[in-house]
């Protein structure tokens, strides 16, 4: 049931998907690089997020934000962004060449 709700929730979000705004995406992605590397190209244990599927990344960020997924850190950061902003971030990294 929980999973079904999550799927429905994600689908709802995709219905209201925002258009990609390159400037917003870039600006919102800037602080991610401190932990995930420049343009998300991590060289350490922190996940490599450059070129990640937009849908997978957006779902992951929403799961952090909504408390479905917890890590050491990401749930605290994800709560600082609107759903639309998280989607722009996901767009941005999906467009970076791996």
């Amino acid at each position, binding site marked *: 049931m929980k999973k079904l709700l999550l799927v429905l929730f994600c689908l709802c979000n995709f219905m209201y998907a925002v258009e990609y705004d390159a400037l917003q995406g870039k600006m919102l992605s*800037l602080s991610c*690089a*401190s932990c995930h*590397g420049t343009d998300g190209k991590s*060289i350490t*244990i922190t996940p490599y997020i450059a070129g990640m599927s937009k849908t997978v990344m957006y779902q992951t960020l929403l799961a952090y934000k909504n408390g479905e997924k917890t890590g050491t*850190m990401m749930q605290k*950061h994800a*709560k*600082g962004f609107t759903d639309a902003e998280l989607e722009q971030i996901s767009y941005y990294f999906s467009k970076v060449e791996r």
Partner: protein
Amino acid sequence: MINRRHFNKILVGSVALSFAACSSITNVSLPKDRKRVIVVGGGFGGATAAKYLKKFSPETEVILIEQNKEYYTCPFGNTVIAGINDIDYIKHDYKILESKYKVKVIHEKVKKLDGATNSVILENGDKIPYHKAIVSPGIDFKYEKGYVKGSEQFAPHAYKAGAQTTLLREQLEGMQDGGTYVMVAPANPFRCPPGPYERVSLVAHYLKTHKPNSKIIILDQKNSFSKQGLFQEGWENLYRDMIEWRSVEFGGKVLSVDPKRKEVTTEDEVVKADVLNYIPAQKAGQLAFDSGLTKGDWCPINTKTFESKLVKNIHVIGDATIARSMPKSGFSANSQGKVAALQITRLLKNKPVVNPPKLANTCYSLIAPNYGITVAAVYEAHEDGIKAIPEAGGLSPMGADPSFRALEAEYAVGWYQNQTADMFR
């Protein structure tokens, strides 16, 4: 008066081949075909800003002026003091910024920035004009209570990394078992709020392993500190009675210090140290004062662009700014450097700035090599200040199990490597 021959010599002498090919750069007057941004200071703020200016706008001429050829980070400096890493672990240089990103790097000391003529004036008298400047001057110390210039040779602050880091490590290594390590921790505001407490944690780790009869006394010039609960829980778990923290109200207040004798006089007694780590009160780097960028001890800024409120076309980032509520941390400076670079790129192209910009900060602290704690926040820049988003951020949990602490420690190392790569590679 511009000494063109001298200026050309500096450029040829200190900058990579990559820009010897671009003849217009050696022209001291402003280039006609492009914009010039000068970044002064090559630390967490400045190095990041220089790299990202070129990423956002490769056609902009970016000159980074930093007096030292090598940069030692304060983050992870505490692991060097405690003998966990060597000094080379925290050493970085500017070669990749030159070769890969085509930033022109000049290793000279800057006398001041002159807002009236939009120029950077070097100590040697050369004057380099800019369209926009970013200054990341870092901190300087307030010398008071007997701690004067030169005192750092006897009672190192080790709060600017490099020679001071090595000196404090040597003093710690030279201390006998049963000795007392005394830290004077500064009043707010200061660089890296959890920094002193991470340091005593890692010093305790070293002492527990090598000199278990020793003790640590912290004479604090305030009544509480960053991540206090988490630190004190960690000290209780790992070091028991080794660390004694005295708040300013209860025995910590320093009246005077004798750095040579390593004696600190408080309201109650004279505390004798075997190693005295005196971290003075702080203010913006001297360059900020000399350039008219300060009000009180720090630099007021327009929060959306980081442009100085006092001097037009100069953007100030990092520890020297009043960027409340962001803490003075390496992560903050890096985040600010990118936002300033993005906004300057917009301004130079007569485009509206991004409004509101968002910034973030995470501070990792190690209580032991396998025991990490964190605090995080996300910020939005509004006219009246940089505000933390209330529902986001926070501290790592109290009472977490060892595997969680070990994971945070591993992520701390991961952060350091990705963060420094984001600045220098």
